[in-house]
């Protein structure tokens, strides 16, 4: 599994179960809390809310303005009450990148749980000091004329990138655009590419 999964403590499961058992007994952990966490993050969130917001912004200029100026109001239209999001727009002049160097802050309500690499030292250390080289290694060559604007999530504000709409999506509607919009594009480590064909 590589460096992302270094030497999981062989006793971690018993340490978890011991604490879980005590917190159940004390009434701190509800008996269904673990199942609800799994349901919520495996099924109910994912990057879908963020992708829906971007797809709507690409097809509705007024919604795009709202998403950039008042993200809470824009997300409310997608039935999400979330006050802490800032949306930063990629343009021909600027490429945005999101990181949390101090821990792993990430906009869970719009993107789901962060991928492991986002939480590991390799990404957190270099995203602020050599983002262009890092993105290049991750497969994204950013034109040297574009400014790279890194957002270090050091407080409770959370950041999501509004990627550029590719020319190849001309004519597509909001629902057809959603599969193009990946989590990585919303973090800023990828551009929007044609979606992988659905496996049959």
């Amino acid at each position, binding site marked *: *599994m590589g460096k*992302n*999964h*270094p*030497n*999981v*403590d062989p006793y*971690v*499961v*018993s*340490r978890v*179960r*011991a*604490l*879980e*058992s*005590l*917190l*159940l*007994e*004390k*009434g*701190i*952990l*509800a008996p269904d*809390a*673990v199942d609800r966490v799994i349901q919520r*993050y*495996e099924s109910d969130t994912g990057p879908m809310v963020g992708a829906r917001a971007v797809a709507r912004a690409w097809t509705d200029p007024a919604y795009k303005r709202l998403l950039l100026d008042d993200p809470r109001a824009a997300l409310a239209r997608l039935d999400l009450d979330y*006050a802490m999001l*800032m949306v930063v727009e990629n343009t021909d002049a600027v490429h945005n990148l999101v990181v949390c*160097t*101090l*821990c792993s802050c990430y906009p869970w309500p719009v993107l*789901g*749980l962060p991928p*492991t*690499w986002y939480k*590991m030292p*390799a*990404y*957190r*250390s*270099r995203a*602020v*000091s050599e*983002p*262009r*080289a890092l993105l290049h*290694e*991750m497969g994204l060559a950013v034109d*040297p004329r574009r*400014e*790279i604007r*890194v957002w*270090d999530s*050091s*407080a*409770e*504000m959370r950041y999501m990138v509004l990627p550029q709409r590719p020319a190849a999506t001309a004519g597509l509607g909001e629902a057809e655009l959603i599969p193009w919009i990946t989590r990585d594009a919303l973090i800023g480590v990828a551009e929007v590419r044609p979606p992988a064909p659905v496996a049959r």
Partner: protein
Amino acid sequence: MEVESPGMDGVHDLGGMQGFGPVEREENEPVFHAAWEAAVLAMQRAGGGRGLYNIDEFRHSIERMAPAHYLRATYYEKWLDGVTRLLLEKGVVDAGELAARRAFFEARPDAPATEPLTAPLPARPPANARWAQDVIREAATAPRFAPGDPVRTREMHPHGHTRLPRYARGKRGVIHRCHGIHVFPDSHAHGAGEQPQPLYSVRFDARELWGESAEPNQVVHIDLWESYLLPGR
């Protein structure tokens, strides 16, 4: 047992460090790699949602991990360590009962978490799901800085929790916007109250942060509390 760090300039403060190798991306990564990860997340939220600790105490608890352990541990191991330390410190869980429960599950790794329980589970109202997001307060005073104002960050090395990253200390930047009045983590993590103050997005040119090693055409925005900042130029 590794000696825990007092939580000063810690290894968690990773911005600008080198030598961790390439970013490794896992194709089709599952949301959880094992069920115990979800249990850790559920426990972290339950403890916070019942007011047993706040988000800043939780972050500081993880920062107090021994540095080598921090770098070796997976994300949810860090969270387990952070939650466990807080629950022990606050007397919610007793070290003796935890050790006994661990011994039980080390001997019976496949036993369900409910097996050692002898009494019916107590009922409690649901925990507050928004405990970690509730950080914005009413303004008591006007923000000292306005967008466009030059500022300089304080050159400080506190012996506790802070959200001013090491790479951005003693650096000149420009106020981009004010996010309103936010609870101050440096006090909130240490039982010293919320001490809310203005939070700003501050823009730094990469050359100010990294000198001659900076990549061209790069800026970093960092969200910083007012007391981290001095008037600039």
